């Protein structure tokens, strides 16, 4: 793992912290930087980066954890699907504990007897489908630009192998419309965005052009501590110089146009639509739904879903937290009622969620 160690070199870190301090000194106001992506939130917590920064720099976590932005309604639908006869409901582990409208979760549903299985890749579903031909394998398709292509490949493979007992309940989302919604939010006060490196290898740097247009700094950043610190420094430089652009810190693999082949595959399966983000509300063109030609793999076409009246949990401030308006400790439920063992909102469930990261690392 020499490759990883390079990006955790304490000497490099020291040098970057000095540069950050210098840049921060040139800025005479508090700076708020939003990390859009949950993987950044996680790494910042895991390496203890937040308290290494100068006092006038505030890091807030944005809507980039796919679990956290999954709406209560989507969880309710997942619960409904998992209860159907002859269904194996496959999901990534983080979804298990996310509460739906009435506090139920897939984890509890499993204890009630539903066949809910944790998979670590969508390809495992092909195996399940082949091993249980008499059952329908429903996979909860969750994630942003980085995970969607792998799910798309799985669906494509199933089609070629003529596997018919598999479908995807897609709650996939795309990142740029959410950023646009954030920028348009008058309540928001963000000076710069740490943009996710791996999403950017897919969609390219062009997708973030609206950020500098709105007068904010944008740096596409990797996930190692050294990457993140360098990204923060580059944001501060843009702010200090009052010159905004989409800069690329994470040059390992980001092209302006992105990964065209992967994006083409995703587009051949899915089209964008308005979907609900937990705590934020509906965002136009931000969700991925199956195109009609792939109806055979669309769970929502194969199963009828009743009209579920979903409600977000009362008092959960996830929405404000996802928009960077509040920090987790400003939520009245934080730590008192809402803990990782008894999560009230999804931000407390996901290992990448702002509230659970904040709980663990503060």
């Amino acid at each position, binding site marked *: 793992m020499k490759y990883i160690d390079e990006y955790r070199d304490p000497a490099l870190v020291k040098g970057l912290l000095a540069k950050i301090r210098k840049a921060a000194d040139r800025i005479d106001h508090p700076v708020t930087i939003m990390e859009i992506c949950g993987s950044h939130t996680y790494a910042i917590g895991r390496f203890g980066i937040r308290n*290494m920064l100068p006092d006038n720099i505030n890091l807030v976590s944005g809507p980039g954890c796919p679990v956290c932005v999954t709406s209560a309604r989507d969880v309710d639908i997942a619960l409904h699907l998992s209860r159907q006869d002859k269904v194996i409901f496959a999901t990534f582990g983080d979804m298990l504990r996310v509460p739906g409208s009435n506090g139920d979760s897939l984890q509890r549903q499993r204890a009630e007897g539903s066949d809910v299985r944790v998979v670590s890749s969508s390809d495992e579903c092909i195996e399940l489908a082949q091993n249980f031909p008499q059952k329908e394998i429903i996979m909860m398709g969750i994630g942003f630009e980085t995970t969607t292509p792998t799910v798309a490949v799985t669906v494509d493979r199933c089609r070629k192998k003529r596997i018919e007992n598999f479908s995807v309940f897609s709650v996939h989302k795309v990142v740029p419309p959410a950023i646009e919604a954030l920028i348009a939010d008058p309540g928001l006060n963000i000076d710069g965005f740490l943009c996710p490196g791996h999403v950017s290898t897919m969609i390219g740097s062009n997708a973030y052009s609206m950020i500098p247009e709105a007068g904010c700094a944008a740096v596409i950043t990797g996930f190692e501590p050294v990457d993140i610190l360098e990204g923060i420094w580059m944001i501060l430089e843009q702010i200090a110089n009052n010159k905004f652009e989409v800069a690329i810190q994470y040059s390992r693999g980001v092209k302006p146009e992105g990964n065209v082949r992967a994006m083409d595959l995703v587009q051949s399966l899915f089209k964008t639509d308005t979907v609900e983000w937990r705590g934020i509300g509906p965002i136009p063109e931000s969700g991925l739904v199956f195109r009609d030609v792939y109806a055979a793999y669309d769970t929502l076409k194969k199963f009828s879903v009743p009209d579920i009246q979903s409600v977000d949990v009362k008092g959960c401030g996830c929405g404000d937290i996802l928009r960077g308006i509040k920090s987790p400790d400003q939520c009245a439920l934080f730590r008192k009622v809402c803990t990782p*063992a008894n999560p009230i909102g999804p931000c407390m469930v996901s290992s990448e969620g702002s509230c659970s990261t904040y709980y663990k690392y503060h």
Partner: protein
Amino acid sequence: MKYDKILLEHGSGGLLSNELVANIFLPHFSNSFLERLEDSAILSIGNHKFCFTTDSYVVSPVFFPGGNIGSLAVHGTVNDLAVCGGKPLYMSAGYILEEGFPFAALTEIVQSMADAARGAGIKIVTGDTKVVSRGAVDGIFINTSGIGIIEYEGDLSIKSIKPGDAVILNGTIGDHGAAIMKARENLGLEADIVSDSAPLNGLIAEILKVSTDIHCMRDATRGGLGAILAEIAKSANVDININEQDIPICENVRGICEILGLDPLFLANEGKMVVFCPPAEASKVITVMKGHEFGRNAAVIGNAGESGQGRVVLKTSIGGERIIDLPTGELVPRIC
């Protein structure tokens, strides 16, 4: 909203497991032996001090690189006795077998139990077998109990930990959890990862020979090093400071953790323990460990702090700080 049924997570060795013990078992069984909540109960019969422990093994898959459910059961029992200062003497073995389980597999498991017991100097002196219909268990589950005699004079207990104590670990973390993950998942990884399942009684006996001032020992099994330290810090009400940089870890384990997004601090071990002792004793302990086959990569990873908030503070490899708490969620279920 409280839920009134058992979740898989209750068996994870994390927060929910602790709650289960505190809310259901302790109130009903309450007695001073149980309330210590250490790896074994400490009992006196006549002038002799004994330790007594029990554990059940449900690992999936049953065979994994570095061992199988049988050797694991023996090592687990031996270690729970040894960290309490006991010399393991006798143990039981109860089997719950699923209809259709192959004789060949059972023979191999029993054979390796016998080998492991011989290696650790413990005798399997009583047993039981039940067979249940297909689907009622997954292949084979094993329950063991063990009894050992305590000759060490000091009080090996979480309560004996003093501010300033050195925290010593006898080697790399996460090997068992990572080996199980790798055996279970079809990861297509070449990397060689072998469980660290091993009996620690020989090593512990040597440590207790060179130092009469060991304060506490615990084996870091389910929940990993992170969970055991968090538990110790809470129940001793001391802060524990550890340095990420000093914690030994195999390159391959670290690799699999990077790929799967796991934190090796919370991956299970089956041959690792932490030792708390005064700093002056640390070098003796390290020397003994390094000279023993199950302690070659031993290191001082931190110390018990002065103040008592019951927190584990990890200094990260790049110089930041984070708090290590009891894990929640199912990390990797059925690892032991």
